[in-house]
C-alpha cells in the first residue's frame, strides 16, 4: 500500500496560484497519502504556500474534504483559499 505511488492533479486558485506561479500541477504521492501529507509535500516544494496553509480548505473531485481524507490515483485536488464570492 504505502510503497505504491499514485499521481494526483493539484489545482491552485487566486492568491495561492500567484504564489505557486501556475494553476495546475501533477504530484506523485504514496499510496497511503492523505490530504495533509500532500500539503506537506506542496509546502516543501513551494515554501510560499506555508503562510497560506492554515486558511486553506481542500476539495477532492469538487467536494470539500477533511485533512485526513485518503487520496486515490487520479484524484483532482483543489486548494481553496478563503472564498469571497458575492
Amino acid at each position, binding site marked *: 500500500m504505502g510503497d505504491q505511488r499514485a499521481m494526483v492533479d493539484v*489545482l491552485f*486558485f*487566486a*492568491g495561492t496560484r500567484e504564489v505557486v506561479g501556475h494553476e495546475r500541477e501533477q504530484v506523485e504521492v504514496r499510496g497511503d497519502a492523505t490530504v495533509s501529507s500532500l500539503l506537506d509535500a506542496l509546502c516543501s516544494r513551494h515554501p510560499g504556500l506555508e503562510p497560506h496553509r492554515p486558511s486553506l480548505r481542500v*476539495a477532492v473531485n*469538487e*467536494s*470539500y474534504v477533511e485533512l485526513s481524507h485518503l487520496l486515490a490515483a487520479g484524484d483532482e485536488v*483543489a486548494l*481553496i*483559499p*478563503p*472564498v*469571497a*464570492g*458575492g
Partner: protein
Amino acid sequence: MSVNHCITDEIRVTGEPLDVRALDSFVSADGVGGRAVFVGAVRDHNQGRCVHRIRYEAFVPMAERVLCEIVAEAHRRFVVERVAVHHRTGDLLVGEAAVVVAVGARHRGAAFDACRYVIDELKSRAPIWKKEFYDGGDCWVTPTP
C-alpha cells in the same frame, strides 16, 4: 446536487454580464405570489480605499455544484417554487452586478428567507474569489461576515 430541482432552478457561473430581469422572469410562475431578488454589485470603496474594479475568479464546475447543493437545501428548508443564481467571473467595473439570487415562492416570507439563505451560504462555501484594484495596488479580498 439534487437532480429533482434542475427543472425549477437555474444555476450558472459565467463570464457574461448578468441579466437581473431574466432571472426575475425565470422564478415567476402562476403559483408564485412573491419574488425576492438580491443583486450584489461592485462597490466603489472597501475598508477606506477607492476600488476601481474587481476581478472575480471561480473554480467553475465546483462552484456550480456547490450552488446546486445550496439551492437544494433551500428547497428543503423553505417552501419555494423556483430559485435562480447567477454569479459573474472576470473583470467588473463599479456598479456591475456580480451575483443575482432570485427566488419565487407562494408567499413573501419564504422568498425572503430562501434568498437570504442562498446568498449567505454562497459567500461562505462557493469557491469564488475576488481581487480588488485600487490606486497603486491590488489585493485578494478575505471574507467578511
